[in-house]
């Protein structure tokens, strides 16, 4: 059995089937990211693993022991909350040492562990401050420190970066990744941001409506999405997914299957009008410095392309779009990926 195992885990809110039979195996030391749109159940699932929400069906196993009905305080898991949930009436040092003090650990050991965690997180000079005297980023590090000090079996992160500004988010993402590498602890990380999922995870679990859509390494999900949902959720800008009914003659051979065609923006090449390819008209040009994103209207459909060079094209210009045939993903009418 894996280190953390979910077997047919279910949750009901009254008649609503919020979590639908989740099976998942997480190995020791893995960094697993739960990702999905709002309301997909990723936070609920995390809270069920933490013990903050009851599990209505199925079972949960940690390190060979069933913990389905065990109280949160006894699961040996540490959670970093989205709002940090620091104890406002305690100093940083007391916040970080709280769990150890509850467990009656020797004071000297507590001081040592808190000091070490504070040094890793650059909090050493803030130990005597209270949360309201800290910035958002510092508070978040205290929340992480509180978890590290306990050396739990598994870390649970609930959208920890969503309250930070963009610059700090990018920085903290890197810090968390480095921390994971240093500590080697099993981690489950919940986010709605697919960039975090792609950059931080050993494996990504894509969730929708309480069920798993696909589990795999970030690049496996990118290169071989199991369905149109995953295909469009992972990757920025979104993959172009076109109904074959709307562009039946596009994309050459094998396009007669009824369903959808998918192609990533970086595999759509914008050529001058008249050259071979789909003819269309440029709608919007977004220049990001290194990348340029071009939105082109082709018949009834809008295609997005991405290139890493500048362009002189302007809205209204006629162009031809060329697609590399090897880059085409095919999906059936239900959105499931067809074998290449």
């Amino acid at each position, binding site marked *: 059995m894996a280190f953390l195992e979910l077997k047919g885990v279910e949750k009901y809110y009254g008649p609503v089937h919020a979590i639908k039979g989740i099976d998942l195996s997480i190995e020791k030391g893995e960094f697993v990211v739960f990702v999905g749109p709002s309301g997909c159940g990723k936070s609920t699932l995390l809270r069920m693993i*933490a*013990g*903050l929400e009851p599990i209505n069906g199925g079972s949960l196993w940690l390190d060979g022991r069933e913990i389905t009905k065990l*109280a*949160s*305080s*006894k699961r040996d*898991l*540490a*959670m970093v*909350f989205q*709002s940090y*949930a*620091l*104890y*406002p*009436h305690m100093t940083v040092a007391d916040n970080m040492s*709280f*769990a150890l003090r*509850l*467990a009656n650990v020797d004071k000297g050991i507590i001081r040592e562990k808190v000091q070490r965690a504070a040094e890793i997180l650059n909090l050493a000079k803030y130990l005597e401050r209270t949360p309201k005297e800290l910035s958002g980023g510092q508070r978040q590090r205290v929340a992480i420190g*509180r978890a590290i000090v*306990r050396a739990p079996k598994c870390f649970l992160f609930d959208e920890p970066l969503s309250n930070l500004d963009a610059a700090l988010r990018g920085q903290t993402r890197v810090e968390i990744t480095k921390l994971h590498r240093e500590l080697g602890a099993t981690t489950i990380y919940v986010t709605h941001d697919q960039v975090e999922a792609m950059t931080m995870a050993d494996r990504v679990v894509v969730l929708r409506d309480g069920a798993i859509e696909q589990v795999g390494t970030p690049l496996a999900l990118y290169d071989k999405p199991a369905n149109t949902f995953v295909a469009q959720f992972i990757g920025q800008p979104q993959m172009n997914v076109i109904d074959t009914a709307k562009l039946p003659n596009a994309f050459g051979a094998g396009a007669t299957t009824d369903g959808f065609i998918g192609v990533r923006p970086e595999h759509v090449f914008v050529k001058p009008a008249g050259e071979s390819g789909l003819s269309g008209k440029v709608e919007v040009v977004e220049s990001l410095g290194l990348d340029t994103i071009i939105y082109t209207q082709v018949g009834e459909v809008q295609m997005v392309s991405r290139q890493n060079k500048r362009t002189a094209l302007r809205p209204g210009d006629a162009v031809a779009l060329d697609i590399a045939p090897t880059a085409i993903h095919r999906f059936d009418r239900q959105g499931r990926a067809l074998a290449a």
Partner: protein
Amino acid sequence: MNHLSLIVRTIVAWLVTLTIVFPLIWLFLTAFKTELQAIAVPPELIFTPTLENFHEVQARSDYLLYARNSLITSVLSTVIGLALAAPAAYSMAFFRTKKTKDLLMWMLSTKMMPAVGALVPVYVIAQTAGMLDSLTGLTIVFTLSNLPIMVWMLYSGFKEIPPDILEAARMDGAGVWGEFVHVIRPLATGTLASTGLLCLVLSWNEAFWALNLSSANAGTLATLIASYSSPEGLFWAKLSCASLMAIAPIIVLGWFSQKQLVQGLTFGAVK
């Protein structure tokens, strides 16, 4: 214009305050008068104060006994009330269901019924249980009378605590008692204090049940004051003196804790 309206408002405020406080001031003065001075017309504002009333009140009716009874019933009903109300408020604040608001409304609505409506049943129960004229009986009645308000006030205070802090405590290994001791109590100290104070004041001032359910043994200061309204007529000076001795402790307490009391009461009103 603003300066003028400020002066007007200040004068009005002082007038209202003096109107409210005047009876107390007069009570205070009368307590130090002789009976003749007390009924003098026109009323005497300047007089030689005397302490004879205080001696009489203590001699005639054991003031200290009644004061002790008031103290015991107030303090006990407050402590027991807090012990019962806090878990109730905790459950309502952090484990809310669809019926929680209805339940709170219903609890509070019982306070709106005139106590006299429940007099006969409560008297009969107390009599059958052998609790007439006993401190136990009074304490139970005081506790139950104040419980709805205490639950409401504590509920309002506890709701202010972000629930994820409690979840964090749970993840850190705290059981329910641990949550209460390490998180709720420090964060809700103001609410707990003001709720306790309010209950103390309400129990101390409680007259209806004290008069009906107690007499010589368990009588509180409220019964002491009532005993001065005798068929022989009202002895204003002694009555004032007894009243002053009855309310003095609670006024002092209230004076020092007024900030807490106001905070606790307005908290409940805003929510």
